[in-house]
């Protein structure tokens, strides 16, 4: 392997790797703002400039690939002086509003200011200010905080495939904005906030809800579609505040779509049915677990039953059901369901040219591998249905008169008209394995405790079995 020397240490590298990455691998931090490993290199923030032997000028590490025998200094006086001066230039017009800025605590500009900046401020002129712009429902823009790194512009054109973020004006008046001030259109807009190294582009969804340092982070996988993008759930006191992408070069690189990012909302939504519930007229009546199970059994008693299992459940849950269902319900037909029109992985395909897949549930592939059949329509004569789902699989419409019991995550706003709901756990409240469209097994990790009286599937199944005899089911 080729070698170069960074700060006196010999470092191996793969040809073509830039100095920021080569140094990072050796544990040497070269600070930067405009560089992003998933975006093109513009070398314009100038923060990553380093000294390279035999080159008279400082060179930007982001745009310089390491070469055999190259001797690099990242902490020389000249390099430090440049870092100090870039920090000064970036901060002369940056508002000192960290105390009320959402990025505070996880802000590149703030962190690097502490590490590389000078606490003394020489700037006495009036600071530059911009008018605000509404960029639509996802992103809140605060141009005064912007350091013109253009990562957002590059994310839009290079990843999201839409040229909606632009730079207008010139020089010190440069403004990063949208074309004609229009709202953002991409359904990947949340990433604009992720790539922003300051508090210029923040998520409206997360704004002012929680300081970053209070958040507990759980690495998990998005359940929004069959890709299974890697992400982190950020929660505090059992409340999810946001989900952020987690880098996985083979699945989602650095990105997450808005649908996946904001999918978590249903977990905390107020109308989620978190207590065992009986139907009473148009409204739902909470009850206790025993009564609910008894009532469910009563509903099924003597009826011809079919069982629908959501492909938003985990492999572990699927296997438990494979044991449980025949024991309890004999040969009642079992189908998996999730996305209308996507009855099997054959029907699944990319939904855009970025990340999204047509199957809007995460474990279609897993269920298929375990031998579950896809739901298309109820067999003739079915009088009752048990719907088991994680929270995202789309419930089919049943003919009037078909009695339905729900097990899992449901919302009153869905108005499913079920006889009984046995509240289960969402993807954020359990551990488990899901299999994405390409057969990659990935782990869901529990980040919060189940809400209300919601229970894990095995516990509900055990309660069902222990509650008297199995319901008599017409064959």
């Amino acid at each position: 392997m080729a070698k170069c020397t960074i700060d006196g240490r010999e470092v191996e590298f793969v040809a073509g790797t830039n100095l920021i990455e080569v140094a990072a691998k050796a544990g040497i931090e070269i600070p930067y703002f405009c560089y992003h490993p998933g975006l093109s290199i513009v070398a314009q923030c100038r923060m990553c400039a380093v000294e390279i032997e035999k080159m008279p000028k400082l060179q930007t590490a982001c745009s310089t690939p390491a070469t055999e025998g190259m001797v690099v200094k990242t902490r020389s006086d000249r390099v430090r002086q440049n870092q100090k001066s870039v920090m000064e230039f970036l901060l002369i017009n940056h508002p000192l509003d960290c105390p009320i800025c959402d990025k505070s605590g996880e802000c590149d500009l703030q962190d690097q200011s502490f590490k590389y900046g000078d606490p003394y401020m020489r700037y006495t002129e009036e600071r530059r200010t911009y008018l605000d712009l509404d960029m639509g429902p996802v992103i809140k823009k605060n141009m005064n905080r912007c350091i013109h790194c253009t990562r957002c512009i590059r994310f839009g054109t290079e990843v999201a495939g839409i040229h909606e973020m632009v730079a207008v004006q010139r020089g010190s008046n440069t403004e990063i904005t949208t074309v004609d001030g229009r709202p953002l259109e991409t359904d990947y807009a949340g990433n604009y906030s992720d790539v922003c190294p300051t508090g210029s582009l923040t998520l409206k969804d997360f704004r002012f809800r929680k300081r970053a340092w209070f958040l507990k982070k759980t690495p998990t996988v998005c359940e929004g579609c069959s890709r299974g993008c890697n992400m982190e759930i950020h929660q505090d006191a059992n409340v999810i505040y946001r989900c952020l992408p987690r880098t996985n070069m083979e699945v989602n690189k650095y990105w997450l779509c808005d649908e996946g990012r904001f999918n978590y909302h249903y977990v905390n939504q107020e109308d989620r049915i978190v207590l065992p519930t009986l139907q009473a007229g148009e409204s739902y009546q909470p009850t206790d677990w025993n009564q609910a199970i008894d009532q469910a059994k009563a509903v099924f008693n003597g009826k011809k039953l079919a069982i629908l299992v959501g492909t938003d459940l985990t492999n572990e849950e699927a296997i438990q059901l494979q044991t449980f269902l025949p024991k309890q319900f004999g040969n009642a037909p079992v189908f998996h369901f999730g996305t209308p029109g996507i009855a099997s992985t054959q029907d699944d395909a990319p939904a855009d040219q970025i990340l999204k897949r047509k199957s809007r549930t995460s474990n279609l592939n897993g269920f298929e591998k375990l031998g579950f059949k896809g739901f298309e329509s109820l067999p003739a004569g079915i009088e009752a249905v048990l719907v088991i789902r994680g929270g995202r699989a789309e419930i089919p419409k049943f003919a009037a008169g078909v009695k339905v019991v729900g097990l899992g995550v449901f919302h009153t706003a869905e108005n499913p008209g079920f006889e009984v709901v046995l509240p289960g756990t969402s993807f954020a409240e359990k551990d488990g394995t899901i299999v994405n469209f390409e057969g990659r097994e990935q782990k869901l990790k529990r980040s919060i405790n189940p809400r209300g009286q919601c229970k894990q599937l095995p516990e509900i199944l055990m309660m069902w079995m222990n509650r008297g005899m199995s319901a008599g089911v017409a064959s």
Partner: protein
Amino acid sequence: MIMAQQHEPMYIQYFNDECRPLSFYLEKMNGYAASKKAFGMSQDDIINEVKKSNLRGRGGAGFPTGMKWGFIPKQSAKPKYLVCNADESEPGTFKDRDLMRYTPHLLIEGMLIAAFAVGAHHGYIYIRGEYTREAKLLQIAIDEAYAKGYLGKNVQGSGFDFDLTVHRGAGAYICGEETGLLNSLEGKRGEPRVKPPFPAQAGAFGGPTVVNNVETLTAVPYIINKGGEWFSALGKVEKSGGTRIICVSGHVNKPGLYEINAGSMTVRQIIDLAGGVLGGKKLKAVIPGGSSAPVLTADEIDVIYDIEPLMKVGTMMGSAAMMVVSEDYCMVKLIQRITKFYAHESCGQCTPCREGCKWMEDVLERILHGKGREQDLNLLLDITDNIAGKTLCALGDAAAGPVASFVKKFKPEFEAYIRGEKHG
């Protein structure tokens, strides 16, 4: 337009309207003979002839033209391009305007030869947006050339195809920087690119590209007609061939274009050539190479006016735009105006230039308005240090160099403002 002595000048005698048409170019200027000759030469021979001529880029950087052409790969999967930088945006420069206005065919023929030498079949003249008249005149000349077979398919029966397009800029200084120009040409925001790749590797539309200044290209027909050695001999200092058109402006009695043999005169002699300082006043300063060149004091003007000698005294020849300042003009006002220009024209990509130029402008303006502080001068010098050499393109240096030189060389004038003895 005044001719200097010595050799017959190359351009300036043609700077009138009668010289513009193709007919004049063919009859009186041996027009399109050089290209015909070039078509009979090998590409390497042409490039070698240009190397021998010691022709150096006339846009400001002074890079040897033959060497630049030599960087273009012989084989390329993508089309190669020749781009003429006619943006002429450096304040004080107005030579390319007259070259295009009066001798457009010299430029077209120069481009034809250059394109043949590097194997480009499409050329662009990226012309400053403000030059509406010149853009029209160039188009007329190009149409003439197409009509007579000097452009287009199979030029002059040589089998070589060459198309030429005039592309008007939209009024940004930064589009005179070659990679900013290429971005603008491609319809993008006029921002310099990260180098490498250099234009010779990946320039316009990703193809290998030569970018040459107008005056550089107009020298090419002469070099092919009369030989590289002839051209080189016109230059009176080492490594600098041909003549130079100098744009003299400011406080002289006869501002205008002067053509001299490269390196044949000192700054002082050129001021004399332009009729001396306006109104017989004393000289205070000279900005020798466009507003981005560090200033010379009246004591420093006995330097030969050419690339290397000026570099040795810490300034540059740039685009040969000499601005003369007389004794009663305020240097603080002057540098404030120059800095305002660079702050306005900074593209805004690089942190030091975007923030630093405006900061310098603000500090200078404050000084000018009697609100200067003692530490401001050191602050200004610090800012120039933090900009110079730390940006993608040379605009940062262009802004920093003058400020540093003004503050260092005319410190008492700044101090007078700071002490409140003078007001803007």
